[in-house]
Structure formats: C-alpha cells, structure tokens
C-alpha cells in the first residue's frame, strides 16, 4: 500500500492545471517527471509480486516459486532497454490492461538481428528485425547498444491478463540474412 499510495498522491499532484497543460516552469516540469518515475518504480515491486504470485498459481506443479524480475524499461520510446540488449536470452511478459483480447505487434530493442521468439505453447513465432532509425541511434544522449528492433506479433493477449514469451539469440543466421534497405529507386 505505501507504494500505491505514493503513486496515488503523485497522480493527485498531476491533476494540477499546470501539470495537465504544460504551463509550469521548466524546473517544475522536471520535478513532476521525477515524481512520476519514482512512483512508477516504487510500484514495479507491486507488479512483480502480483505477477510472481500469478505465475506460481498458474504453474501448479512448480516446486520452487519462479522468481522472475519483471523489470520495466522506461526508455522503450527511444528503443533502449538494458535487459533485452545485454542478454542473449530473456523473457518478455505482456500484460493486457483492456477488457478484450488483443493482438499487438511488439518491438524489442536488441543488439543483433538473429533471435528466436517462443510463445507460451512452445511455438516458434515469425520475427523480423528492423534497424533502429539512424536519427534515433544518432541521438547523443541515448546510451544504448540496440541496433535493431525485433518485431513479432503477440496474438490473443487475454483480457486483463498476461502472456510470457521466451526470446533467445539464435546461432543460425536467418535465411533472409541481415536486414538491408530495398534498392534505391532511381
């Protein structure tokens, strides 16, 4: 509760007309951003414990509780995420907040272009690696090693539910090889 209350109080501050419209001073805007990031980070422990309980509950015959970290990457909007860039294998859990099942194309920042994605039923999904746009990868203060975004289709994410995907760097080079731009039109 202390975490959730902190986020509730922070969201209370965000109802101020300056926070809603962006008419606050620069330093106040930075303070709002900092409060939000601290509050969301505090609540990631809540999410982690809930998802761990759910994953234990769903996997009845598991002896030891599977302690996944369920880390959030807040820089996905600039194609940056340490876990997916620095690890050869990782799990990605997608929680669908809507009341209906959705299909969503997911983009994961990765260092290379040959990865395998396995869905919860063990099916290997079609994937595609697309280079991170040059303007993004050239951004000075984006310290990320991701050169590609790994795209796959997460289908039928259950309403108010989640699915976990296993992503692993594969030793084999995909048949289509390294993603390259179509030939320039003259």
């Amino acid at each position, binding site marked *: 509760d202390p975490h959730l209350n902190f986020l509730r109080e922070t969201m209370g501050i965000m109802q101020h007309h300056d926070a809603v419209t962006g008419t606050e001073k*620069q330093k106040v805007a930075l303070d709002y951003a900092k409060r939000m990031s601290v509050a969301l980070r505090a609540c990631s422990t809540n999410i982690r414990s809930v998802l761990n309980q759910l994953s234990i509950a769903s996997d009845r015959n598991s002896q030891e509780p599977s302690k996944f970290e369920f880390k959030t990457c807040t820089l996905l909007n600039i194609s940056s995420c340490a876990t997916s860039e620095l690890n050869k294998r990782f799990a990605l859990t997608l929680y669908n907040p809507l009341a209906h099942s959705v299909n*969503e194309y997911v983009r994961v920042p990765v260092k290379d272009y040959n990865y395998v994605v396995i869905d919860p039923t063990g099916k290997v999904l079609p994937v595609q690696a697309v280079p991170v746009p040059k303007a993004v990868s050239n951004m000075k203060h984006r310290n990320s090693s991701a050169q590609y975004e790994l795209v796959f289709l997460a289908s039928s994410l259950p309403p108010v539910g989640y699915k976990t995907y*296993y992503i692993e760097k594969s030793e084999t080079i995909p048949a289509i090889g390294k993603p390259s731009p179509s030939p320039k039109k003259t």
Partner: protein
Amino acid sequence: SSYTVIGNNNIQLTFDTNGFLAEVTADGMTRMISQEFLYYEAATGNNAEFLNRSSGAYIFRPDNNQIRFATDEVTIEVYKGQLVQEVHQKFNDWISQVVRVYKQSNHAEFEWLVGPIPIKDNIGKEVISRFKSDIKSDGIFFTDSNGREMLKRKRNHRETWNVKIHESVAGNYYPVTTKIALEDTTARMAILTDRAQGGSSLEDGVLELMVHRRLLHDDAFGVGEALNETEYGEGLIARGKHHLFVGQSLQRPDVSLKAIERLVQLETLLPSWKFFSNVSYSSDQWL
C-alpha cells in the same frame, strides 16, 4: 516504377521520387494523400497590450502566419519483411520519421522524431505534421473530446456566437486529445495521436497537428519564462506516433471506419505493459 510502395492487403502507401507520401489505397479506393512537416515562426509581441502577446506556454500565435517547409526533398530507406514494411524518412537534421504498415493492420503508423529545434536565428518555431488529401471536406472537420465524443468544427466559425477571427491560423486551432478527422460523401481520413496536441484543418481535405514547439519569449500569462525546454543544454527531442486511417465514409452495417478507429485508439493508448526478465534456463526448461 520509380515510386516506393509499402503496405498489405488492407492499405498501401505510395511515396513519390522525392520521398514524400503521395497516395494511399485503402478500403477499395485510392486517394491523393501527402504528408509533410512544416513549422510556424512564433510571434514575439511586446506583451504590453493584451492583443500582441508572444507565442508561449499558454498561447499559440504564429508571426503573420509565417509557415516554412522543413524540406523539399526527403531521403528514404525502405525495409520490407514478413511482419512489417517501413519507410525511414529524413526530412532534415532535426526532423525524421518512420512510416510503417504491419502485416495485419488496417492503418499506417507515422513515428515522428523532432528536435532539437534550432534557434540560432532567434526565432521560435512550432512544428506541425500536415496531411493533405483530395477529400472535399467543405470547411468541416472533427476533433475528439477527451477521447470520446467527436465534436464538429467549422473553419472560421463558432457554434454559439458570431466570431470575428483575428488570427486565421491560431483562431482555428482546437485541442486534439486522441483524434482529428474529416470526410466527404465518399472518403474519410482520420489521424489518431498518442498524446494531446493542437490541431486544425485550414484548407479543405487538409489536417495538421502540432507535434513540438520551442519558443523564446514568455507570453505574459503567468509562468514567467519562455517555453524553451532543454535536455543536456540542448533543445528537447520529442518522439511520438500518429496513426492514419483512410476509408470510405459511408456508414456500412458490417463495419464502420469509425468503429475500427475507436478500437485501435484504445489499443494504442492502452498498449500492453512490458516486463523483462533475465532467464538462465534453455527454452525447453523455460517451457
């Protein structure tokens, strides 16, 4: 053909030899639709009288409606694969965009990246993304009200009083929380935003949305500083998405474009939450 085409069975986008979007084929029809980035030069009033205030945090006011093109030629790179086709566009040193169509989508995604906005010329700039079409919208367009009801807007007009428009651009700008649209008897064009933006339709068939601004003068409404956001001492860089829907405007019993827009709006504004976990197991053990 020297044109570049990306898309799927639902929607195809054609880019001309200058790298600009030129045409969209969707819902059984092809319409001339172009997209470009421009920027208004910001007015710098002397803030003495009420009327000539500067463009600032509270005010949007272009200087004599001065608008500049970001470029007249776009360099593009095209990536096509089994799940998504993308056109990476570079408009200039501080404006670029990725236009993509996923394999099963019925709309196109425009992921723009704007900034740092240059101010060496001491002129504030307000950047817009403008979609031009041949749809005869007759001065009428629609903007949403907090993501729900669509409000009808008419250029240079107000529903409840005889308005005298002094600012022909700013006087026609409205708040867009999630969607702006226009249509005629045959076609409809709608753009979903991923955040609240100012938007308008200043010509028939044209929609524009303000994606980023950097101003150098306070507009004397109280904040006491110019809207000149910086990051590491440089102008802020903004990145976001617009989703473009094009289709027939007539209401059909089976599916309406508006219903599809509504569903995608929900799914793009409330996407899945992503959690990453290191894994030491092999895939079999993991399963």
